[in-house]
């Protein structure tokens, strides 16, 4: 599927990119921060999933998610948060903003894709969406 990855740390970005594309076989687009993510989401073809880091400077994950849900073009795209474990209580807040799930950092790069697929399946995504691009 077509994934938009939003992550400000370059190392994690590189690892996640390899994990999602090589292990999961998905088509991954990268955004380095919230603002870039919004721009890309507006101008590109709709994505099947947006993987959103929470702790980012300037525009954090929650604010980005809020704005994505407000825009007609991106409001239907499922959002999954990437977060460090300490902030689980904030994630419940994130769910209330419209995200469908969360992945805890540090994640296992070999199972990242399967975990994402599990979340999407439990939210009614059709099987062909989950197939590798």
């Amino acid at each position: 599927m077509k994934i938009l990855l939003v992550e400000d740390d370059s190392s994690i970005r590189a690892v996640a990119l390899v994990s999602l594309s090589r292990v999961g076989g998905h088509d991954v687009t990268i955004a380095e921060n919230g603002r870039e993510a919004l721009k890309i989401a507006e101008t590109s073809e709709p994505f099947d999933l947006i993987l959103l880091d929470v702790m980012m400077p300037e525009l954090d994950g929650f604010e980005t998610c809020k704005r994505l849900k407000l825009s007609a073009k991106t409001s239907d795209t499922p959002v999954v948060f990437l977060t460090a474990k300490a902030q689980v209580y904030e994630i419940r807040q994130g769910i209330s903003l419209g995200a469908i799930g969360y992945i805890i950092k540090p994640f296992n790069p070999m199972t990242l894709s399967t975990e994402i697929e599990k979340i999407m399946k439990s939210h009614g995504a059709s099987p062909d969406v989950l197939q590798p691009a």
Partner: protein
Amino acid sequence: MSYNLRNRLQGVQYLSIRNRLLIASLILSVLASYGPNWIIGHIQVLTERQGKSVHRREQLASASLILKSINHCHSEMIAYAVSGNSSWLSQIKISLDSAQRALKALHFNLHADKQILLFDEPESRENVEIISREFAAWQDRLVIPLIKSSVPLKMQPYSSSFIKSILEDSNFNELNFHLLRLTENLERSHRASDEASIRATKRIRYVVLGSALTFMIALSLFMLSLWFSLIPRLNSLLIAAQEIKSGNLSYRLPTMEVSGGTEISTLGKAFNEMASSLQEKNEKLLELNKVKTDFVSTVSHELRTPLTAIKGSLGLILGGVIAPIPVEVKQMLEITAKNTDRLIRLINDVLDVAKIEAGAMRLNLDKFNIDFIIRDAIEAIQPYANAHKIEIQYHTANPSPLLVVDPDRLEQVLVNLLSNAIKFSQDESKVNVLLKLHADNVAIHIIDEGIGIPHQEATQLFQKFRRVQNRPYQDRGGTGLGLAICKALVEEHGGQISVSSEPGKGSEFIFTLPWNGIDIQSQSELAA
């Protein structure tokens, strides 16, 4: 001008209770001292009048008696003179005697009167003098000689001229005339004083009534003033207290109600100051809390970011995704990966402890089926159990209770306890998990058949940094924080954790979680 007056009237509302009491007691004490004084004065006047009227009645009686007696005497003298019958003489004596006595009484009364200064009609006094004079003259000239003159037993009628002189005696006529005048005067003043007494009594009654009424009105006004000014102020104080209680710490009583020096204004001012102090302290506390939570979040993020990158890149290499790697390289990298995971666990523990210490540990509570959580935990630990060929047996309860818990944290506790159970057991032994239902809680037992815990260590097991010393399995790792975190998490849920163990036989960890005894998910619901 009217503005000033309105201000002044409004100002009355702000009279303190003390001042109101002073004013009220001033009015009442004036009433109290003046009223009774006036009443007593008038009662005194009344009693004097009573006394006076008694005197007057006596005087009247005496005067009437004198009148009657002298007229009897007169008639009897005529009768004697006409008949010559000497038996009339005794009657004459009796009548004269009676008249004399009555006159004496009148005189006595007259003199007694002087002390009370009551005989205010000089005419009456004059009358009495004349009466006495005329009586004495009449008595001496006519009556006594008549009695004294010895009349022979043979009846000799007196001459008609003598009778005529008795009839026309000037003293007698004067006496009669003045006695009549006296009686008339006495009756008239008697009547007048009666009327005056009645009027005075009426006046006293009105004064008493008036005083009582004024007293009532003054008291009522005082009460009303308290009611209308105090009650609304107390009400607004009550509302203010309720606002503060419900969390609105910025609520204050309006300036109008707290200025002025009355007792309740002072109370209001103190209340406002208290609210300000509360608000300030609360804001400081919230700020402090925020700083603590921010710190933990920031540190957590800063530590986990590089670890994510390390674990991620290692995982990809070991997963064979990047390029094939020689076996020895793989072995080394596996050491790195294992220790990275260990480091991650350590940091998780340390951050958990930091959160607990900072009071920033917040649970995400919701109703969950506890059975599912236990099964998830067992599933998570299964690889570790399989590696040591340890069998985990789970004895669930039916029906499964629904509890208000944080599922992630509860799973953390279970995984920790199961991990310990496996760690300190011999390979191929068993670990039992029991779910037991009680009236107001559920208990989860984790029982292993491992090496057990020496008694003196069992008591300190849940403290931070405690690890069992001198153990054969020490290199299996552990930070010493796990059980302390379990204890904190269980207690945060409102439960308790305990351990019983016998060295060489095994250990049993039991923790409880509160349950209302009602909420369950039956097997039929699960099947549906």
